[in-house]
């Protein structure tokens, strides 16, 4: 099967009320396709983290999920502000989240680690003042 778009969803900055919606819709779509639970779970975790990152840290963005016979590819693109120090952002426990966000149980600096851990391939392209694109691949 050639790669095709399974889902595309716009996500607004600070929209906690819709946090998890994209991941829920994706999970349902994967269930309908009969995707194995172990794969679906990994894809859901990765997408949830990307979704919350857009809500918490970005000026807004979108998530597109592609599927082929070999893999699922999750791409999160945002409108900025970009990550100043990617290496630091990837350190477990490091986060730029404010106290309000932390009190909600986010911003503990585990999100990017989760994405890395649950995907087979993970890349970050970022430019300060521009935006960031996260791509995670989960192989079947």
């Amino acid at each position, binding site marked *: 099967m050639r790669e095709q778009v399974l889902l595309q969803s716009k996500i607004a900055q600070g929209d*906690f*009320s819709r*946090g*998890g*919606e994209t*991941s*829920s819709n994706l*999970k349902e779509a994967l269930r309908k396709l009969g995707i194995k639970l172990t794969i679906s779970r990994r894809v*859901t*975790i990765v997408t*949830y*983290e990307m979704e*919350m990152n857009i809500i918490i840290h970005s000026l807004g963005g979108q998530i597109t999920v592609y599927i082929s016979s070999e893999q699922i590819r999750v791409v999160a693109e945002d409108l900025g502000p970009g990550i100043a120090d990617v290496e630091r952002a990837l350190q477990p426990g490091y986060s730029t989240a404010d106290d309000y966000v932390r009190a*909600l*149980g*986010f911003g*503990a600096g*585990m*999100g990017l680690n*989760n994405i890395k*851990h*649950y995907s087979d391939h993970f890349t970050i392209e970022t430019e300060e003042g521009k935006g960031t694109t996260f791509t995670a691949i989960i192989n079947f």
Partner: protein
Amino acid sequence: MNVTKLVETLGLDVVSGPFEREIAGVYVGDLLSNVMAKAERDNLWITIQGHQNVVAVASLTEVAAVIVVEDFELEEVAIERAQERQVNILRTPLTAYELVKKLINLGI
């Protein structure tokens, strides 16, 4: 054990539900990334968080019920959403430790 029986046995407040679910295992945590990664389907999830994103995480992980300990407050919008999505939310004045002791005694 199922959720209804647990509510009766421990005298938990039902904030949303009870929706019929069997319980298998427990996860305790307040950091949502950890809960996403570690909580298993049919677990009881014990937390102090009571906001709407808890419902999203509970639904994604398919936990049997969320138990909010120490009578932490629940957002109205979280309760509405939990009812819509048929997510069990229970509450108790017990601390997480006191609750876990009781759950162990019940064989969960």
